């Protein structure tokens, strides 16, 4: 980020863009000239560096570089040096205080003779030589600090950093920002976590798998304000880590509104950052995933698969489970504060996708909200075991189990294929075809009456007739069978 007086933009109509420094030979020349100057001044004073930089600045300006560009690079380089007060016989602060006090008493150094006397008297008071006193006095001015190290970037890296800083500086003036991107669940989580941490708000939309986040702050609804611009600028480095992205920010610049539109094509001008790493939120999840995979149920498990919509806000389930063309999300709700659980429940209630919700038995949550949940609910005690899911997954098994799939009967939790029993398929079919919506218990008993005694088989038949079992809580008496396909 740069001071706003160093901002350079390109304007066309109502559009504005940072005036990026291209990564070409000319700009690399300017960058390397400055970097070299800093490098040469390690061990010298800030004042000396400033004088040298002034000269380089003039030289670059004469060559036609824009002064704000040059100043911007200097600004960034200044942050890479470390300076220290020089060693002196007496502390510079003390020397300064003494010199000024003596000078005040003597009516100030209005002539060179008085000046000498002031230094002599001050030196006497501090019991040092005049030379050492003057050295300490000079050291009290900040430009006498000595540069002890310079963390030199490469010219290209400096230019990239400049471009990022420039973009952030323009974003300072943003009133709102739209981020359109293809994100994994992990990426969305990381961005939304930052949005929240910064005290910003968002509205989400999703179409064709592309997520659009409209980002601003609480007060943006009521006043147009650039208050949140500095915070939005902090999102930019995160955005740069996405593979494909587009930003559209509404910017108030020189008292006029502009649109700043950037996309992944600009990433190459800016520092390259590794993609957002997926980190596990908690041990519970990591542990669960490993165990689930070890079970070998034939279900594929993917962590934080993708952001789901929950009426304008976003919900990122912990896992997605795939088998054949069946896909179900799994959310593990651990032991948290009641407020956290309530918020989570509110979101879960808005999600339309099929969902298994694993809840901690000791969770601080009202029974009512649990019962209102759409998906299948699995209650676990302390730690969720992969085997806890087996009964629910059985119900969700795809209709046709692929013949090639090997069975490994050694695992006790392994789903055992039940053989088809003799039933009157016609009767079953005609009954099932007539259902619009019926309680699960009723359907099961009707099927038993028609010879389907195996529950697993009953679920399979229900699904194969375009019906779906909707679970409302754990209690089967609340579940219904509903038509999804004619």
């Amino acid at each position, binding site marked *: 980020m740069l001071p706003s007086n160093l901002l*350079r933009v390109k304007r066309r109509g109502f559009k504005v863009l940072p005036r990026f420094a291209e990564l070409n030979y000319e700009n690399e020349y300017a960058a390397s000239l400055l970097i070299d100057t800093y490098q040469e001044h390690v061990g010298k004073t800030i004042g000396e560096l400033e004088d040298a930089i002034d000269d380089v600045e003039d030289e670059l*300006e004469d060559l036609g570089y824009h*002064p*704000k560009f040059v100043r911007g690079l200097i600004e960034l380089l200044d942050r890479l040096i470390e300076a220290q007060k020089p060693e002196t016989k007496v502390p510079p*602060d003390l020397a*300064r*205080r003494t*010199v*000024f*006090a003596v*000078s*005040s008493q003597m*009516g*100030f*150094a*209005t*002539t060179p003779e008085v*000046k000498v006397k*002031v230094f002599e008297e001050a030196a006497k008071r501090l019991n040092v030589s005049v030379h050492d006193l003057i050295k300490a006095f000079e050291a009290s*001015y*900040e430009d006498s600090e000595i540069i002890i190290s310079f963390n030199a970037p490469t010219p290209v890296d400096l230019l990239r950093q400049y471009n990022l800083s420039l973009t952030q500086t323009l974003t300072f003036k943003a009133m709102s920002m739209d981020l359109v991107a293809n994100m994994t669940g992990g990426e969305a989580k990381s961005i939304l976590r930052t949005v929240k941490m910064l*005290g910003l*708000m*968002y*509205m989400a939309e999703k179409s064709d798998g592309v997520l659009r986040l409209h980002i601003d*702050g*609480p*007060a943006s*609804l*009521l*006043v147009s*304000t*650039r*208050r949140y611009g500095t915070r939005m600028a902090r999102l930019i480095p995160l955005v740069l880590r996405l593979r494909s992205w587009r930003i559209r920010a509404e910017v108030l610049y020189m008292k006029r509104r502009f649109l700043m539109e950037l996309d992944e094509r600009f990433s190459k001008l800016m520092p390259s950052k590794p993609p957002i790493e997926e980190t596990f939120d908690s041990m519970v999840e990591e542990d669960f995933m490993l165990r689930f995979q070890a079970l070998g149920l034939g279900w594929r498990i993917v962590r934080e698969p993708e952001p789901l919509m929950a009426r*304008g*806000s976003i919900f990122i389930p912990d896992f997605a489970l795939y088998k054949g063309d069946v896909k179900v999300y799994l959310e593990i709700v651990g032991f948290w504060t009641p407020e956290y659980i309530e918020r989570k429940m509110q979101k879960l209630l808005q999600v339309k996708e099929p969902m298994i919700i694993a809840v901690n038995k000791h969770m601080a949550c009202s029974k009512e909200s649990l019962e209102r949940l759409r998906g299948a609910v699995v209650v676990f005690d302390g730690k969720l075991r992969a085997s806890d899911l087996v009964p629910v997954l059985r119900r969700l098994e795809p209709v046709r189990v692929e013949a090639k799939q090997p069975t490994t009967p050694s695992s006790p939790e392994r789903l055992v294929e039940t053989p088809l029993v003799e039933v009157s398929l016609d009767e079953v079919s005609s009954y099932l075809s007539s259902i619009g919506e019926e309680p699960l218990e009723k359907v099961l008993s009707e099927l038993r009456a028609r010879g389907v005694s195996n529950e697993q088989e009953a679920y399979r038949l229900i699904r194969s007739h375009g019906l779906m079992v909707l679970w409302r809580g754990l209690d089967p008496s609340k579940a219904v069978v509903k038509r999804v396909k004619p």
Partner: protein
Amino acid sequence: MPPPVVLEYERGTVVVKGFRGELPGCKWDVRSGCLRALAYKYFEVKRALEEMGFEVIDKVLSPIGGSIGTPHIKPLRSYQEEALEEWLKAGMRGIVVLPTGTGKTLIAIKAIATLNEPTLVVVPTIELLEQWRSQLAKSLNVDVGVLGGGEKKISFITVSTYSSAYMHAEELGNKFKLLVFDEVHHLPSESFRQIALLSTAPHRLGLTATFEREDGRHVDLLDLVGEVVYRKAVYEMKSKHLADFDLVRVYVELTDEEKLKFSKLFSMYKDFLEKKGWKLKSLQDFRRLIMASGLSKEARRALLAWRDARLLVLNSVSKLDVLKDLLRRHKGDRIIIFTELNKAVRRISKELLIPEITYKTGSKERAEVMELFRSGVYRAVVTSKVLEEGIDVPDANVAIVLSGTGSRRAFIQRLGRILRPAPGKRAVLYEVVAKGTPEVMISRRRRRGLTGG
């Protein structure tokens, strides 16, 4: 009976849960599915709901607990008393306009003591921050919180700079009941106004010597703080409570060499303006030039020429000679030297061995210099713009202005600083102007501000 409506505070705004309809200052927020208003509309919103007969569960305020101690406050002068009374009558809202040096701080302290509520005092500079902190601590007998200059401690009585209060507005918004804005003319700027907008505080006091802003935005203060409840002008006050002062202008001649250099540089600048058809009549024109300098090389050269010309005049040998003369003449006095460019400040500091304060001076060092100046160990300070407003230097009786911006407000306030009443003392203000340079014009404009014309 309808279900109760819940009011909550959220980062500078108030959200209304369990009600959908018209409410003052409220808008429907789809992001959170509720009505939302800026915090300063909180009381209006609550009143409207109660008038409609709703039960309101109010979770908005989170005031800082505490109380002031036994106050030790100097008795108010009659006009201070009047000002306080008018403010109380106006519902503890509004602005007091009084010249610098007339004890606005005392009015505010008395107001704070009268209300004894969690209070946030907002001031423009670090110096004022220090000054208010010590005065509040002394007169109200409390531990005073500070926000700004690298400190962050929020207490029952807290002093903050405008910048820090803006930055932390969301966090401060529901913690105070009284806001005091020192130099309230700063408040209407696009960002600073949010300190007022994002706060629920019902009671607000604004203080200033110069209510009117050049951009006309002072009218917004009505909504943000309240109306002007009390106002007295300079000429009414001068004979009563301000120290008498003399204004002395000293003309200096540039050396021949300086003159030649100056006219070369100045004509470079003037030619550019003439080519563009601009007149350097106001600050506006000047800003335009600065803006243009970012766009064309020619404009930048013109600006640089103007800067060099100015530095040449400021650093002119004859000016420095005059300064030396004045220092000799005022041995034993307390002197503040103003000059505009930091380079010029540094030069005077190093050459004459006078402590300096610039925007680069750290707050600790700054406090030390001011303290030693107050206690008389230092008899002079040279400074750039940082002392622009209301800094309390009670014993300074000589000011030497080596340059100025030509802004009226700045000049009045600079003057005010040495006009603190001190028995039997005449203050002197010297303005050192180079003859035959454009500075003469700026100085004339400045003095107009003094007489109110």
